[in-house]
């Protein structure tokens, strides 16, 4: 049983992302980075210093950014297209659809500082629609690493087996919830904690919070399973079905809109079984007020205690 150490150090996943990308670029000349004037915020300064020709900065032009990425992939390179999540997915959604997913060009879209990482900058800068929008696109993998180790693995996997992919690269600091050697398998959730009463499915920043909720529930004698939804697409249908048959309720938690994200995906899978437990989806359904990321996560009920409360209600319901 994993017990979350609340005093554990936390990390900005962009650091692991940048280190891993640079390491891979040294070994494989097909690896290039593309950005929209976001060399700093995408942590690509080191990459630019070492590989100035392989860092393509198209300026503030996100439609061109994604189109250029598709062209680079078509030419035989492995482009990591980096931009703040809201602009990468919202501004260039049609490019992601037509040029990447439908055209099956192996572009690695890196949504930097996703969710509500930009806190007080407000909803224009929050990327909470990305999971809904991108889940609607066939042929696009959606990876949401929960910590620095999974971030490294996601980058490594993208080079080892390039395919159209969106990776959320977190900025809001998170504690480790996996070991460096834990596998990141395409289309699989990770079992973060075994349990048989209720299943908590967290993704990204919410995995450590789901683990905190499990600790609180354990104190009440409730045995919570925690799944780390590192892949939103392809979806781990098997793990969801197991949760639906082996536990009495499912609570999903995501730093994203619930209209089409992880919660919606889980609910659709459970409903398709005909009979299943209650699914409670935690996330956003309105534009955020002004506040820090931590404040906003609390505002939207995305904390350990709030997840635990939702689980108790779901079990009672």
């Amino acid at each position: 049983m994993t017990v979350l150490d609340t005093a554990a150090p936390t990390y900005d996943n962009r650091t692991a992302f940048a280190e891993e990308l640079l390491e891979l670029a040294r070994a494989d000349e097909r690896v290039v980075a593309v950005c929209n004037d976001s060399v700093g915020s995408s942590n690509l300064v080191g990459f630019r210093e070492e590989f100035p020709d392989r860092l393509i900065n198209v300026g503030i032009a996100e439609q061109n950014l994604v189109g250029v990425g598709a062209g680079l992939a078509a030419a035989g390179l492995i482009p990591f297209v980096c931009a703040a999540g809201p602009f990468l997915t919202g501004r260039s959604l049609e490019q992601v659809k037509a040029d990447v997913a439908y055209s099956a060009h192996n572009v690695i879209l890196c949504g930097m500082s996703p969710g509500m990482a930009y806190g007080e900058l407000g909803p224009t800068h929050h990327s909470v629609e990305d999971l809904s929008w991108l889940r609607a696109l066939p042929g696009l993998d959606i990876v949401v690493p929960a910590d620095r180790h999974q971030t490294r693995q996601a980058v490594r996997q993208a080079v080892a087996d390039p395919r159209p992919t969106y990776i959320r690269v977190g900025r809001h600091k998170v504690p480790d919830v996996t070991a460096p050697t834990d596998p990141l398998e395409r289309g699989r959730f990770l079992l973060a904690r075994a349990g048989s009463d209720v299943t908590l499915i967290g993704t990204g920043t919410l995995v450590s919070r789901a683990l905190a909720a499990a600790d609180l529930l354990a104190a009440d004698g409730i045995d919570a399973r925690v799944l780390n939804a590192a892949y939103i697409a392809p979806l781990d249908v098997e793990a969801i079905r197991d949760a639906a048959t082996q536990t009495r309720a499912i609570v999903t938690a995501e730093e994203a809109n619930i209209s089409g994200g992880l919660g919606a995906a889980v609910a659709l899978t459970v409903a398709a079984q005909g009979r299943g437990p209650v699914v409670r989806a935690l996330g956003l359904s309105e534009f955020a007020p002004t506040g820090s990321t931590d404040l906003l996560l609390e505002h939207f009920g995305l904390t350990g205690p709030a997840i635990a409360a939702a689980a108790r209600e779901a079990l009672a319901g």
Partner: protein
Amino acid sequence: MMTAHLPQVSIWREVRTAVETGSPDESAAILAEQSRLIRRSVLAMIGRARAGHIGGDFSVTDILATLYFGVLRIDPADPGAPVRDRFILSKGHCAASLYSTLAFSGYFDPAELDTFMGPHSALNGHPNRTKVPGVETNTGPLGHGLPVAVGEALGARLLGHDTRVFVVCGDGEMQEGSNWEALMSAAHYRLANLTLVIDRNRLQQGARTEDTNALAPLADKLAAFGWQVREVDGHDHAALLQAFAPADGARPVAVIANTVKGKGVSFIEDRVEWHHKVPTPDQIDLARKELA
């Protein structure tokens, strides 16, 4: 995925060689004949499918014929060769003319053209690279081809490949902002291996371009964005061959090909309603005679 039709590849090779070795007049005559065959094919496809974009298909035909039978360094028998010239039809709604050109180049059996837009056909109303060999990227929504072409040109340079990238945009399509983002990038990166061809037929779906969202002075705008501009008659094969010559210097090349929408069939030419109108059987007979 369809595969190459080798007998047709052999025919394409012969034509390609004849264009390369012929006098300018001979080459132009050969390309004119290929264009006539493409237009006849487009007419038949649209007649069968009862759908398509005949006006734009006919305005871009001579450009396509010149590129595939006279310029592009490609091998239709090996469409995935790592080093090859690239072509993108950004105005993807003119798929019938692209499919005809690809089939006559041998990328797939010309008999497949009969399935155009039919149930489960590989030949969708807009080109799909995962189903049609020779298609480099999926187009349809406007303003997508040029950014992808910029990426291909940049990528070829990074890989040290001697590759030229050609992209054809409609003139109405130049109203899309993404194109102007890409125009800036191509000039910034001095992509001399990139050629943009603008099919300047002066009509868009609903009206004349200049009455909708005027593009003029288009050549000046492109030059101001850092491109080398060449303006030609888009139905003059000899002029197109010259315009498609490699860049002089380090700037990307924009070819403004002045064309007539519906070129080749008198009652279709330069009429806004023929953007995607489908000819009646009688009109098809008349058109076929004009393309005899």
